């Protein structure tokens, strides 16, 4: 029996961590006598942003983390961020196989699976969003909280006045009016209690979560074929199961928020299309720029986008 040690980027109580722990349970059940995963903890065991390096260096065998936490080493993660597909389609069309290949080449890690996909981001606001004459979102005068994932979009397209605040300070920031709007995934606002201050959700949602399981390549290669098969099969199964589970959770969250008075403001027509296009293209732009700087170059840029983005779906 072989054992892999694992850590997860987020605290144990967060929904995404729960999803990873379910995956671990499934592996440990299917892999009895063959392969087991031993979870060592979350950010209290290895710092959130140090986990990608830790798995690269073999300190720990497996990490569940957003690709954005190692975007410096692997700018291609932005293909997932700007994706409008879920892992199910990206697995089928070979997108995840390509991302895995890039992970192996650039970081020496195996990309085992893209979990909790299909969840996207909304802009959440305290006051009713203003729309200009053409129906575009007008964020002038709004204090928008940003971070590394969405700053390219917020500042370059929306021209927003972005304030970088750590997640732990956002509650106090909203309470005192230091910020009055923030991006966040469709799920999880209630857990953070930010809905006490936020009253509007702006649609359409944009981006996608980019949470994945990466495994130290040396460790992966040392596993028996049977162990590899179990891990990979369970991961593919969980890619699918997690999409479905989180869809249900999203609908529940939205319903609960709306029952609590959250109002939805939806951009229409061209304004909507421009908003979505900007979110995507500003992110792609960043990815292409960083890919070009790296020794592997940006040769796979178009292929990646073709595999993770389907223009038909946005029509």
């Amino acid at each position: 029996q072989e054992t892999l040690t694992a850590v997860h980027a987020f605290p144990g109580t967060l929904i995404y961590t729960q999803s990873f722990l379910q995956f671990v349970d499934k592996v440990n059940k299917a892999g009895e006598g063959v392969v087991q995963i031993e979870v060592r903890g979350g950010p209290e065991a290895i710092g959130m942003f140090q986990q990608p390096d830790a798995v690269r260096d073999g300190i720990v065998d497996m990490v569940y983390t957003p690709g954005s936490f190692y975007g410096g080493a692997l700018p291609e993660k932005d293909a997932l961020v700007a994706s409008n597909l879920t892992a199910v389609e990206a697995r089928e069309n070979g997108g995840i196989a390509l991302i895995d290949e890039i992970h192996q080449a650039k970081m020496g890690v195996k990309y085992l699976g893209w979990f909790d996909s299909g969840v996207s981001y909304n802009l959440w606001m305290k006051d009713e969003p203003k729309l200009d004459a053409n129906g575009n979102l007008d964020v002038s005068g709004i204090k928008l909280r940003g971070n590394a994932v969405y700053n390219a979009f917020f500042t370059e397209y929306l021209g927003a006045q972005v304030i970088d605040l750590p997640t732990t300070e956002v509650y106090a920031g909203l309470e005192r009016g230091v910020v009055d709007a923030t991006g966040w995934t469709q799920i999880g606002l209630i857990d953070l209690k930010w809905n006490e201050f936020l009253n509007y959700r702006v649609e359409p949602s944009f981006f996608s979560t980019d949470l994945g399981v990466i495994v130290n390549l040396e460790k992966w290669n040392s596993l028996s074929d049977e162990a590899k098969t179990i891990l990979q099969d369970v991961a593919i199964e969980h890619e699918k199961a997690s999409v479905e589970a989180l869809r249900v959770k999203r609908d529940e969250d939205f319903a609960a928020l709306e029952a609590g008075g959250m109002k939805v403001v939806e951009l229409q027509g061209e304004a909507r299309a421009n908003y979505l296009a900007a979110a995507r293209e500003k992110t792609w732009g960043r990815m292409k720029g960083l890919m070009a700087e790296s020794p592997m170059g940006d040769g796979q840029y178009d292929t990646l986008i073709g595999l993770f983005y389907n223009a038909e779906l946005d029509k």
Partner: protein
Amino acid sequence: MEWYEALGLLLGSILALMAIGMPVALAFLAANIVGAWVFMGGERGIGALLNNGLGSLTSFALVPIPLFLLMGEIFFHTGLGGRMFNAIDKLLGKLPGRLSYVTVLGGTGFSTLSGSSMGSTALLGSLMVPEMNRRGYKKHMSIGPILGTGGLAIIIPPSALAVLLATLARIDVGKLLIAGIIPGLILAAFYLATIFIQTKIDPDAAPAYEVEPMTLGQKLSLFLRDVVPMVGVMVVIVAMMVGGVVTPSEAAAFGALGVLILAVIFRCLTWEAVKKSIVGALRVTLMAYLIVFGSATFSQLLAFSGASSGLIKWATGFDLEPIAMLLVMFGVLLLLGMFMEQISMMLLTVPIFFPLAASLGFDPIWFGLIMLLALEISFTTPPFGLLLFVMKGVAPPDTTMRDIYMSAIPFILCSLCLVALLILFPPLALWLPG
């Protein structure tokens, strides 16, 4: 390796190294090297240790502390602090231990609103301890109240740590914050009573010098000239926080700026004072942050090796009465708190303790508050409470380990009394949030 072996190795090495007189920060680093070697796969574990230290240090949460230190040092070295305390001294007349009371009242107000224990300990320590020492107060009369009020920052809102705890435990943030108000005020009252008792037992603890009688007019002008402007700086930065102009983490910079402006107005800003203030703030920052660099990784090693989760599971695995179980959890928090950093402790214990508390029928808000109290206490528990080291950095050079420990103990007992009160009368916490 079993969890208790891992725990023994990590705690044993740190305790042994500190006992033979290795600087605290270096002892943490040495224990980390041993731990990284054993639990993180040899040599490469040490690289991870450095990466983790880097991650822990480059955090905005640490930014206010040097700035609060700077603010306190400027207050002291420009003589502004001295002016203010002279005035307060005269205004309060003959009350024994008056500056200690001022420390508790001012400290409660300030640490409460700043929400940062380390920041307010840094500020109050650098401001009050040298002044009170100069006036003949025994050390415990200044150090104790400051260590005590530093901890209040966590309980009385606003408190970043309480928000984080509520979020992790999925309990109502607002309720947990409000639940802290009455217990926080009771704790402050306990502190005042402690000082009263201390001055009764040992009248020499605070100087009993005579104060010249003054007319009301003299008092008023003294108050307006030497107290109002200094307190005004504090009031302005608190107003900026409440008004949303700055976050609590940003407020410290404006505090330092405010004191600089005051010093210019009072014509006491000299290069010498500025230089001394920066050096003073720098010394304490360096000392404390190299410890943070080491201890953050140390608490990660406790978690990663399975030592702390093993301890938690073992301790909570007994089938005990609810009240005994509560004491066990409280004890585990105090023990871990001696070696671990607070946020790591919450991440580690919340997923285990809150479901357990629910199964025992505890109110989650009440339990959350008790947990916050444990975190608060562990910040000042000998031998490794981080606030003790911050205090050591700002206290006069002849202050010993023993002085600081002995000063902290009465105030830790106050917190323990409060916990006992909360267990006996849960409405103290739960009445206000309804």
